[in-house]
């Protein structure tokens, strides 16, 4: 290999071995997108209308007030601020994603200074010799120097779905075709367009008022109806959840995915690595005619099988010695199960297994020096090695062999039982076969172990073994035992599966693995429940042919990729609809896409996990694509909506739970936000219809929407789940929306109207106590607003100048504002729960709510008493007692809602 210094020189010359990152959407475009999306457009219209209105006013009367200009500017400011905010939030989540990319840089095993070293892939330089093995991502464009059965997946470059064989021969002029070049795996990135769908009202004004009045009216309606704060609130709430989920190892890329996740009804999950631990682990042992169970949990701590038998001693020796896997150096402090190993999956499993039980394996191997070795290959299906033994009194060589059980048995003439060699007769052979079938039936990979002590006289210590000529016996071995391995399920998965079941989420396992293994794992994690049967199981139980079984009787189904290939879409639909527990085995990643489409035809919200490049179409097609953070390719990660940092299925379920919670809480937030829209809208309607002086100004509305209401509505996102949200069916994406009819009706027509009424009472109180009784106010609007009428008479005969009236109007605004604010506190408290009484949920569990309430009151106090003198804000100091006028109404709202909740609890069926 290269020397480190030469590598450093080359690195400096050529730069790091990375692809130029895909061109991203320019930041400014992203920013502008935030500026014009959804409600923002409406507000821009409002702002422009304001300026037009001022233009009209100005052309009529040069001295007209600047109010409209202020309002327009405030509206523009609001849009810009929310835009900046949303942009900032998005940028933040993009950054998390980017930093995550850097967290797990690709590593390459490279030979430098004549040593194998692991370096980050971007440090590779021209001339480096790189070692790759199956499953590695090719770290650079490389030329193969030596290879054994190497195949590469070129699909991202050429679209070939079949793995392409690669060897050292130069076969083709075209670098893509020639067999001795592998390419740096490229991935395509596509920008994720975030669009937030919004509902808005278009109110046409066709009343016979002056253009100016109509415009002001229109602006008022727009401002009152647009929940300016909602976008910011929803963004904050979603990013709070996204953060919380990131802590639980779900990294959500787009905020809307949080919410979609909550509505997931089918999860198509990979097996390996997601449901399982993605490492082969010894699960069972068979020796002394007995099956022993090994601990397959993540840390292996608890090996309880009987280790006293002499057979075990022999077996453990074979396991230890007949193994080429080695721990990577420099990992002394790492727990055994987490140590990195050079070697294939089964050997790794055996190495770790023996290390846990016997202690220092390397030391044992050193004491039993290996003199010859035949590595495993697919033709002999066994692995053999010859060792000196560590027993100084015994100079015999020990030949140890492991391999496919039937091949190993063929080579044996005796079998060890309780440490004694016995001839291998028919009954012991039968016992072996039973055990082999049993373990194989569990979907486990079974290995047989045997050994032979070579007689010292024939094979003295100086004997030279030659593995090519096989100058040593390879038969008449003594069979010692069987050992079976499986990639065991993660210990958190069965619980997660149960949770999904109670949450009405169907789990479909899609794996490339063997059907038997797939079914075994599915059974052990509960994807196929203990008492459900497949068609084949029923056939076996009833002893009839598979065709005779009524397919409807089987709850579970195991379908292989070949069967799936022959299915028409209708058949697939039928399969998906009729079986609640489905395992797809031996499937290709392309078929995942077919499965996802099939599920989507069932009107389901499908979450799909994937890690490979080939999974990208399925991840994109799915409503929620979930990429694996550890094993996932970059293509999968960029196509996915969510990345599982720990590759664990249980994390998906946590994500679903969070998604459901935030959906509930957003519903509360929206109900809270929408309620006051009526209270803000009514003044404008009444102003036009009944001719009252304007009860609330546009700027004042903005102060409610963006001032007092912001923190409380965010606080609702902190609300804990009301009942067990994982015991509900997934919501129907189309029918059960965030804003549905009952919610809108209840918010607008019940609470909203009550709130409007309460606010009007405060307004009328202020006017009446200052001299204008409600009867006088009726139809007073035109006179009231004439600037040159400076002797308008009130109910008591007093006369008011226009400025005095204006000031009173602002006091009215403030009063209305305070009225709404006080009632919003009640609204906030009732929105904490949807069915439970507030006493059941507890008033103090969510502390943020109280922060919200405090912020509401403090902001209102500052606006009324602190900013009372700023003309543009239209706030005046309000007499302290007016703050309490709306309190009875607030209490009324609360009582009303408690009664409603009581009714819901008593008669759950009715709406």
């Amino acid at each position, binding site marked *: 290999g290269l020397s480190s210094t030469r590598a450093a020189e080359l690195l400096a010359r050529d730069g790091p071995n990375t692809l130029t990152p895909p061109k991203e959407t320019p930041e400014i475009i992203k920013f502008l997108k935030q500026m014009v999306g959804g409600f923002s457009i409406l507000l821009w219209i409002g702002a422009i209308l304001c300026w037009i209105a001022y233009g009209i006013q100005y052309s009529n009367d040069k001295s007209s007030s600047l109010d409209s200009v202020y309002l327009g500017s405030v509206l523009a400011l609001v849009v810009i601020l929310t835009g900046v905010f949303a942009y900032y939030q998005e940028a933040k989540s993009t950054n998390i994603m980017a930093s995550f990319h850097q967290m797990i840089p690709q590593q390459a095993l490279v030979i430098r200074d004549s040593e194998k070293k692991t370096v980050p892939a971007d440090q590779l330089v021209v001339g480096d010799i790189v070692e790759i093995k199956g499953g590695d991502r090719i770290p650079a464009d490389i030329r193969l120097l030596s290879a054994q059965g190497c195949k590469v997946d070129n699909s991202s470059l050429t679209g070939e779905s079949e793995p392409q064989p690669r060897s050292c021969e130069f076969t083709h002029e075209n670098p893509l075709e020639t067999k001795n070049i592998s390419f740096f795996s490229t991935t395509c990135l596509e920008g994720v367009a975030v669009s937030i769908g919004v509902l808005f009202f278009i109110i046409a004004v066709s009343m016979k008022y002056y253009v100016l009045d109509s415009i002001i009216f229109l602006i008022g309606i727009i401002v009152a109806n647009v929940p300016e704060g909602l976008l910011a609130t929803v963004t904050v709430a979603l990013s709070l959840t996204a953060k919380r989920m990131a802590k639980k190892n779900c990294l959500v890329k787009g905020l809307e995915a949080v919410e979609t996740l909550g509505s997931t009804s089918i999860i198509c999950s990979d097996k390996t690595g997601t449901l399982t631990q993605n490492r082969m682990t010894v699960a069972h042992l068979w020796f002394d005619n007995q099956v022993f169970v090994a601990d397959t949990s993540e840390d292996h701590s608890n090996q309880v099988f009987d280790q006293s038998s002499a057979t075990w001693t022999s077996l453990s020796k074979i396991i230890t010695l007949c193994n080429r896997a080695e721990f990577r150096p420099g990992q002394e402090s790492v727990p055994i199960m987490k140590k990195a190993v050079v070697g294939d999956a089964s050997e790794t499993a055996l190495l770790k297994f023996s290390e846990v039980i016997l202690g220092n394996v390397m030391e044992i191997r050193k004491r039993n020096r290996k003199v010859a070795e035949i590595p495993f290959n697919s033709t002999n299906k066994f692995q053999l090695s010859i060792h000196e033994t560590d027993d100084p009194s015994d100079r015999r060589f020990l030949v140890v062999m492991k391999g496919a059980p039937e091949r190993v048995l063929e080579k044996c003439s005796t079998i060890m039982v309780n440490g004694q060699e016995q001839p291998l007769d028919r009954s012991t052979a039968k016992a072996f076969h039973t055990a082999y079938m049993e373990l194989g039936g569990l979907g486990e990979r079974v290995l047989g172990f045997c050994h032979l002590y070579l007689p010292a006289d024939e094979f003295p210590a100086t004997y030279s073994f030659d593995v090519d000529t096989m100058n040593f016996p390879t038969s008449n071995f003594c069979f010692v035992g069987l050992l079976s391995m499986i990639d065991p399920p993660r210990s958190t998965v069965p619980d997660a599966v149960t949770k999904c079941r109670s949450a009405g989420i169907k789990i479909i396992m899609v794996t490339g693995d063997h059907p038997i293994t797939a079914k075994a794992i599915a059974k052990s994690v509960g994807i196929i429940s203990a008492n459900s049967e497949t068609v084949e199981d029923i056939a076996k139980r009833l002893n009839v042919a598979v065709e005779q079984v009524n397919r409807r009787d089987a709850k579970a189904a195991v379908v292989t990729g070949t069967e799936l290939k022959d299915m028409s879409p209708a058949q697939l639909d039928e399969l998906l609809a009729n079986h609640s527990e489905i395992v797809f085995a031996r499937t290709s990643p392309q078929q995942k896409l077919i499965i996802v489409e099939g599920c989507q035809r069932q009107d389901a919200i499908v979450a799909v996990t994937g890690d490979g490049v080939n999974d990208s179409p399925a991840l994109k097609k799915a409503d929620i694509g979930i990429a694996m953070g550890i094993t996932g390719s970059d293509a999968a990660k960029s196509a996915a909506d969510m990345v599982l940092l720990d590759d664990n299925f249980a994390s998906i379920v946590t994500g679903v739970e969070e998604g459901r919670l935030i959906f509930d809480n957003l519903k509360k937030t929206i109900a809270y936000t929408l309620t006051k829209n009526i209270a803000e809208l009514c003044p404008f309607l009444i102003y036009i219809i009944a001719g009252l002086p304007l009860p609330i100004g546009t700027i004042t509305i903005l102060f409610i929407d963006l001032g007092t209401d912001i923190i409380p509505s965010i606080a609702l996102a902190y609300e804990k789940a009301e009942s067990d949200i994982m015991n509900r069916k997934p919501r129907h994406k189309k029918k059960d929306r965030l804003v549905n009819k009952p919610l809108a009706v209840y918010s607008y027509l019940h609470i909203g109207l009550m709130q409007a*009424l309460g606010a*009007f*009472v405060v307004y*009328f*109180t202020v006017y*009446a*106590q*200052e*001299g204008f*009784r*409600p009867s006088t106010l009726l139809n007073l609007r035109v006179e009231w607003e004439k*600037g*040159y*009428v*400076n*002797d308008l*008479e*009130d*109910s*008591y*005969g*007093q*006369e*008011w*100048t*226009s*400025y*005095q009236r204006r*000031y*009173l109007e602002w*006091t009215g605004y403030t009063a209305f504002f305070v009225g709404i604010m006080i009632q919003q506190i009640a609204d906030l408290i009732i929105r904490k729960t949807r069915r439970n009484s507030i006493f059941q949920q507890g008033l103090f569990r969510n502390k943020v709510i109280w922060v919200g309430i405090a912020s509401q009151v403090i902001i209102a106090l500052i606006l009324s008493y602190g900013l009372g003198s700023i*003309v543009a804000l239209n706030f005046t100091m309000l*007499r302290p007692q007016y703050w309490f*006028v709306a309190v009875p109404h607030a209490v009324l709202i609360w009582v009303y809602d408690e009664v409603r909740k009581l009714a819901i609890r008593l008669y759950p069926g009715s709406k």
Partner: protein
Amino acid sequence: MWAMLQTLNDEVPKYRDQIPSPGLMVFPKPVTALDFSFSVSNPESYRGYINDLKKFLKSYGLEEQKNLTNCPSGAFHEQKACSGVNDPEFGYSTGSPCILVKMNRIIGLKPQGEPRIECILKGENTAVLSTYPSNGTIDLKYFPYYGKKLHGSYLQPLVAVQLIFGNRNDVNEVTVECKIDGSPNLKNQDDRDKFLGRVVFKITMRP
């Protein structure tokens, strides 16, 4: 709501903090803004003003004032010139229009000192301005006002302003500013409220 209305006093509003000081206003009210515009030769152009004035001053007439008992000197301070008694057209036809300046009613208001309304012509002008009463005094006997219910036939004090233009054959345009003066608790200078204790109006007279 109903409960709130029950707490209201029929006679006096609960608070008067928003109108601590009265505004000034002119009478008749022009159709738009405070801009009187008429033509001497065209009676139609000022008929509206005259009718308004007549109606307004009717209650100030001797007939109506007979009932007033609680004003010790119910004498009418109006001089003949603008009372409409001698000239039913209030000088509009002769090019010397009368305009009444009145102070807004505020319940319980007790002006201090000797309030009077002072009017001046703004800018260079040939017109002559006279007020009736000549120094624009408002007699304290008009105060305080007790509200519409207790004080139904209350008549607020008026000061008449008459402009006599020198040249009646030209278009005359004058701006008049009237202020309350002489009373420390009646404000006449507020940046925001241009009608608090003062009033500015314009008269345009065409031949």
